[in-house]
């Protein structure tokens, strides 16, 4: 079991002020698979996602307890431990948000930005890796001629794929997706879905989704969140 499990959540509690958002959440998330978290809105699905890359730390008045173990380089590590460097964690665990959030710069720079953060400045390398990431996000052909245009001139679906490309450029082992298609039309959504299926080969995907049929199409494992509790709904045989 351990060999194929990527994330093990153990008795995770999350409080916002006095409100208990996550209530004793336990789960195992399989490696190289798409795990969908479903459930009514406002039940803590997005919160759970932000606990996996500790983006929740930035919000004042929150309290987290429990353990979130992740399997990196052959060993388990509790990413909630206070000595885990956040920027290191977030380079391992990428995230894509509900609304595309390109930074106010060119398409190229949006992706190259991540390389800049890790101190990689050598121009030919950067250009290559940006192109690769865009290709992996099925975006290269659409933007190759206008790499230096402002990213906000792209369509919604393209922006979202840009954000995925940006998250992929550092080859994260885990990719978190918070309703990645909900702000897009169905056609753009389909492109993203096939992109996710392709990504499964190389990383572990955890996705919050509202769409039943989308979950049926792409998810290998479905977890349901209700009133802060998480339970396993379905796990396909391949995992």
């Amino acid at each position, binding site marked *: 079991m351990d060999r194929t499990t990527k994330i093990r959540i153990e008795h995770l509690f999350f409080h916002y002020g006095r409100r208990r958002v996550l209530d004793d959440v336990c789960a195992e998330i399989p490696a190289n698979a798409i795990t969908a978290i479903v459930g009514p809105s406002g039940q803590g699905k997005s919160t759970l996602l932000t606990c996996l890359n500790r983006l929740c730390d930035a919000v004042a008045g929150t309290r987290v307890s429990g353990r979130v173990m992740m399997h990196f380089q052959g060993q388990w590590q509790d990413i909630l431990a206070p000595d885990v460097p956040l*920027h290191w964690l977030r380079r391992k665990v990428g995230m894509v948000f509900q609304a595309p959030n390109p930074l106010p710069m060119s398409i190229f720079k949006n992706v190259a930005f991540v390389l800049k953060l890790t101190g990689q400045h050598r121009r030919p390398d950067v250009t290559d890796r940006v192109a690769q990431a865009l290709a992996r996000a099925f975006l290269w052909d659409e933007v190759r001629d206008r790499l230096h245009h402002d990213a906000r001139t792209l369509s919604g679906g393209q922006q979202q794929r840009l954000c995925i490309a940006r998250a992929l450029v550092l080859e994260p082992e885990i990719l978190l997706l918070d309703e990645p298609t909900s702000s897009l039309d169905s056609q753009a959504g389909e492109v993203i879905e096939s992109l996710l299926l392709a990504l499964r080969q190389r990383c572990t995907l955890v996705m919050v989704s509202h769409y039943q049929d989308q979950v049926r199409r792409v998810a290998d494992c479905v977890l349901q969140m209700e009133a802060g509790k998480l339970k396993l709904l379905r796990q396909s045989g391949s995992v």
Partner: protein
Amino acid sequence: MDGERIAQKVFLLAAVLSASVTVLLLVFMVILGLPLFQGGLFLRILTHPWLPGRQLFGVWPMIVGTLAIASLAMAVAFPLSLGVSSLIAVVAPGRIAHLVKSAVAFMTGIPTVVYGFVGVFLLVPLVRETFARGSGLCVLTAGLVLGILVAPTMILFFSDALARVPGSHRVAAEALGATPAQVLVYVLIPGAWRGIVTGLVLSTGRAVGDTLIALMLAGNAAQVPGGLLDSARALTAHIALVIASDFDSLEFKTIFACGILLYAFTAAATIAVRRLGRKGEPVR
């Protein structure tokens, strides 16, 4: 005419009356300083030295003095303000940031004359003894105190500008593994540069326009300062010092040249900042 229309007229009148003060300010200075504008006298006053013994009443030394004191003040205040607003924005957000911000807001309320007074009796002797030269009343002393004086306003400007950068940009960078400093340097400061420049320009206006610090701490010698430890006289201080002289003398008229110069400088700064702000509005 009914009450509604009268009220509207009254409000309009109040606004126009208030705005006319801005114009009257300039008009009065120009009229009372009128002889200055004949035969290139104004230009000569701006460029000549101040040598009353030789009947030379130029304010060039005061222009240099103002620039020296204000530049030093900005050189002190700018890095200080950037540092403090970075602390508020990324380094120690939450309770510490809130406390620091309250302290900074309080500092904007400390009377200028109090800074000047403490400067006279604390910093002046210190500078005099440290450098063992002159009286301690010099560009350095005035610039340091003025820097501390304008920093709080600048910090409030900067941290407002940094806080106005959309949260989504910040979260995007954080989720990509940016460290707090990287968020600051690569996302917040580029996103807030207009606000930062605005704060810088308006604070420069304040430093140039401040009277008391220069008057109390710079020594007021009407000569071009040769170094940081030299005494200097600011344009503002010049007005305060010469106001008591004979009204019809040329010496007295120079204060209107100083006034017009200060007015022109701060008005230009205000207009520049408004231009910048308008360009900054999102184009949609």
